[in-house]
């Protein structure tokens, strides 16, 4: 057999030299087959990550992703942060350790690829075309599952911990979350569960969250009964003033604005709170009359990650404060925020 260059190929080891010179047509066909097979190999997304690979460079692309990434990884391993989503994440008040981290604007393949990550952490709702393009370019994309409850959040943490090689840290965080939730449940069971309603409005029709919502879960963790869920609502739905009056909650939970406008009247909260306080139709609603309105910072109000536990804790704190206040001075409970 004449010696010639031997190349390992999917089709097996053949004497290419032999083939090329002795049977050009067959060689061409085999070459074509080999080429196709090679391309197919290339297009295949890497399935389960090889256990040994550690993600050195990670880019989180949504607010939840930022929460997860910053909880599990050191700042150096986070290549860039999403500019727009940052305000709704735990890093909205940027700690010094992340001051020099790069930023990217929009979830598009090109800027992200330019930053050269090994792994991109994205949310299920983000643009699938971009995700696909990143995958085709050989970048690993980990899509966060939809977080329905803190248990889902724990599962996601553990999964990510495995992937990042920070399993230990993930287990620690989970344990911590468990403990915090247990404490919340204890506080909740020690007294009555006030009826509360989530309310969002900008002057049009307001909306509320029923069962199967993250914020609804926050209410439950904080030991409140979601009056909207009890009335049979699921998901986010419109809530007219009349419906709000019919629900007659003891407490209303609203979102504090991202950038609170400078205001002479110090504690004028966000638009939702202003709508509640300024509408003559709601003047006699007990929650409005007694100013039992709790404003959660916007990032916690809208959070989709394990920070729902922190949201619940903050909410519980405010509820307890209101209860203490009304016990002390029945007539004069102002609204609390932040």
């Amino acid at each position, binding site marked *: 057999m004449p010696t010639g260059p031997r190349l390992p190929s999917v089709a097996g080891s053949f004497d290419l030299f032999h083939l090329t010179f002795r049977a050009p047509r067959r060689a061409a066909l085999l070459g074509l087959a080999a080429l196709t097979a090679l391309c197919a190999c290339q297009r295949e997304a890497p399935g389960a990550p090889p256990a040994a690979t550690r993600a050195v460079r990670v880019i989180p692309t949504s607010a939840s992703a930022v929460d997860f990434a910053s909880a599990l990884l050191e700042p150096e391993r986070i290549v860039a942060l999403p500019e*727009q*989503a940052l*305000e709704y994440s735990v890093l909205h008040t940027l700690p010094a350790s992340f001051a020099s981290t790069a930023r990217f604007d929009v979830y598009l393949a090109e800027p992200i690829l330019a930053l050269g990550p090994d792994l991109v952490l994205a949310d299920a709702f983000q643009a699938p075309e971009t995700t696909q393009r990143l995958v085709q370019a050989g970048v690993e994309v980990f899509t966060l599952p939809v977080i329905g409850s803190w248990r889902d959040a724990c599962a996601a943490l553990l999964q990510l911990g495995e992937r990042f090689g920070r399993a230990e840290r993930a287990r620690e965080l989970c344990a911590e979350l468990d403990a915090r939730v247990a404490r919340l449940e204890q506080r909740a069971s020690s007294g009555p569960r006030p009826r509360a309603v989530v309310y*969002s409005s*900008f*002057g*049009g*029709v*307001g909306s509320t969250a029923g069962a199967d919502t993250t914020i609804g879960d926050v209410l439950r963790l904080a030991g409140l009964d979601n009056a909207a869920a009890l009335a049979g609502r699921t998901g986010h*739905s*419109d*809530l*007219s*003033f*009349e*419906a709000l*009056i*019919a629900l*007659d909650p003891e407490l209303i939970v609203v*979102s504090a*604005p*991202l*950038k*609170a*406008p*400078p*205001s*002479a*009247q110090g504690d*004028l909260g966000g*638009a939702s709170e*202003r*709508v509640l*306080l*300024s*509408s*003559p*139709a*709601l*003047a*006699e*609603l007990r929650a409005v009359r007694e100013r039992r309105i709790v404003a959660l910072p*916007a990032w916690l109000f*809208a959070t989709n990650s394990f920070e729902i536990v922190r949201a619940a804790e903050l909410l519980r704190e405010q509820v307890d404060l209101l209860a203490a206040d009304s016990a002390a001075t029945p007539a004069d409970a102002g609204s609390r925020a932040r």
Partner: protein
Amino acid sequence: MNPRSERKRAWILGVLLVAALFALLLKSAALGPSGLRGASVARGLLAIVGLTPPLEPNHQAIVELRAWRGLCAAGVGGALALAGALVQGMFRNPLASPSLIGVTGGASLGAALGFLILGGVVPTGLALGAAWSALLVPTLAFAGAAATTAVVALVAALHGRTSVTSLLLVGIAVNLCVAGLFAAIQYLTLAEWEVGKAILAWTFGALDDRSAAHAATVWIGLTLAALCVPLVARELDLFRSGEDDAQALGVDTRRVKTIALVASSLAASAAVAAAGQIGFVGLVVPHLLRLTCTSNYRLLLWLSIPAGAVFLLGADVLQRIVLGDGVLQPGVMMSLVGGPFFLFLLLRQRREIAHW
């Protein structure tokens, strides 16, 4: 059709519509998610005008909410229909609607600005008191609508005579500009999801949670516009054979167009400020009147007010009975009805399309 019998038919129709309007207002006050109805509602309504002592505060608040909602729906429907009839008379085209003169586009832009201010995206440096912030969006919507219409009118009049064609073309151009700005604002506020959501919700229209101020706004606008009707009704009828022809008969066409423009933009701006973006009423209602009753603007302009009121309020009540509360916002509801109706009109008149 004998002119005398036409007038009689119009009068009968008018009386029927007004009666239907009152019936619908009462029915509308009896519908709501809180289950309050019957005698309590009646007492609550009487209490508004001071004839009986008010109900328990929250129930009274509910009855008043329903009352303002009904009055708003009626006023908005009437105002939009009148504006539509005026614009159709001015453009001599039954397919015209108030949006052509830039009202809806300008109102959306103004409202978007209001939401940006409320959401803190655009700092205004002034401390907005609670009551004022409730009026911010409607005020800016009204201002935006009025300003845009003024721009359209001024630009169209730049080189002497304001022909209807130039009004139309300038209206389209200005609408495009405004729509572009509005789209840009929507895109740029994608990150501020609360503000973006509010802006989007505004484009669907809203009859929920209306206050007395909303109802007052639209009825004042409607009344002022209605006062202009006698000044242009006969003239708009003469416009139908052409503007030049009308001029030869002695009509001051510039004055008529100005008054019609001002009246229609006043009515439409007030409507949009009160209830957000609701389309098609201005197109559909005058048309239905033409099909059933009269093409005569002297009668059509007046009839369109109760007809529009019954149309929008009736659709709202019907939708609340069939689908329950708050399922379809009025803008969406009207689009679902208006789109197919518009198509039906085009098909029906396709033979005459050549002469437009």
